[in-house]
């Protein structure tokens, strides 16, 4: 409610501000940036089917890479996108080296997740969350990746984050896009679901 509050404070804009201050010589802001973006980047990498330990290594490498390329990022507002693209690419590179297979499957839009992908029942906190989870698990892997990462961003950032994930324009934001639409329609058709 204060007059000085920026019109639109989003994850991407807060990241941009910290990155700007870091590049202006305030080294401590980089640690703040790391903390701010840890959740969205963690889920970006984990959605690539890399194990937890590997995900940590991947993000180490991603941040070191940012430091080395900091000068080459012309627009600080692009730093969140830059990190998502780099983290995904590094996860892909590492899993290729380690498993000799490409874990991604971008083609099959309608493949249903194997049940083993679901988290422990204990992690699902109540009946309504468990219904929600059940519906998410019926989405394609690509849609689940998109929603998983988007969930940790703010509304005005959705389109930019989707682009960083390699999704076509219009996948999400400002319109709902097919992944979210599919989820909404599944929920609407589920008589047990009260929104």
């Amino acid at each position: 409610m204060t007059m000085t509050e920026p019109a639109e404070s989003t994850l991407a804009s807060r990241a941009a501000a910290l990155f700007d201050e870091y590049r202006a010589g305030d080294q401590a802001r980089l640690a703040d940036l790391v903390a701010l973006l840890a959740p969205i980047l963690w889920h970006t990498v984990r959605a690539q089917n890399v194990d937890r330990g590997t995900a940590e290594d991947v993000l180490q490498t991603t941040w070191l890479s940012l430091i080395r390329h900091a000068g080459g990022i012309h627009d600080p507002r692009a730093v969140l996108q830059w990190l998502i693209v780099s983290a995904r690419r590094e996860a892909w590179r590492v899993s290729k080296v380690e498993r000799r297979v490409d874990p991604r499957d971008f083609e099959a839009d309608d493949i249903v997740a194997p049940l083993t992908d679901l988290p422990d029942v204990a992690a699902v906190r109540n009946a309504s969350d468990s219904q929600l989870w059940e519906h998410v698990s019926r989405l394609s892997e690509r849609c689940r990746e998109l929603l998983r990462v988007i969930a940790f961003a703010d509304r005005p950032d959705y389109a930019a984050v989707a682009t960083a994930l390699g999704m076509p324009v219009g996948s999400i934001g400002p319109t709902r896009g097919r992944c979210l639409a599919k989820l909404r329609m599944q929920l609407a058709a589920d008589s047990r679901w009260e929104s």
Partner: protein
Amino acid sequence: MAENRITMDDVAAEAIDDGDVELLSRLAGVWAAADPMPADFVERLQFGITLDALQAEVAELQREDGLIGARGAGTDVQTITFTSSQLTTMITVSSIGSGRVRVDGWAAPGAGLRVELRVQGGSLETVADQDGRFVFEDVPGGFGQFVLRAGDDATPVITPSIDL
């Protein structure tokens, strides 16, 4: 067009509303609970970026022994290889008890390589022998990061931080 049936394309073309945002926020909660970040994750990342990496080459990390990406997987020994354009370094970390470890390393080409091991609250240094071997006999457990210098003119090689 004959019916008023709402198609998926119609729903997809609508603007994102507060219901969508609420749904996504609930999903974030479920995902965070299902796959939480490791407890020391942010601290490890922050430790790894305090070094000035600007003028350095970052080595790629590869874990051996089938323990790919495994940390604290119930074993007392971990072997990790770091690869950079200048050199390949293999290190073995063995527990010596009381939360301390011994680090044995071998680098190629490594004769005379200056090896710094950054740990939380300090840093240890040694020089590799003629065969490129080096050792840190007693290192506190926790995060560790190597800085390798082949000579005064060579670009230093730094590694991602690891759990010792």
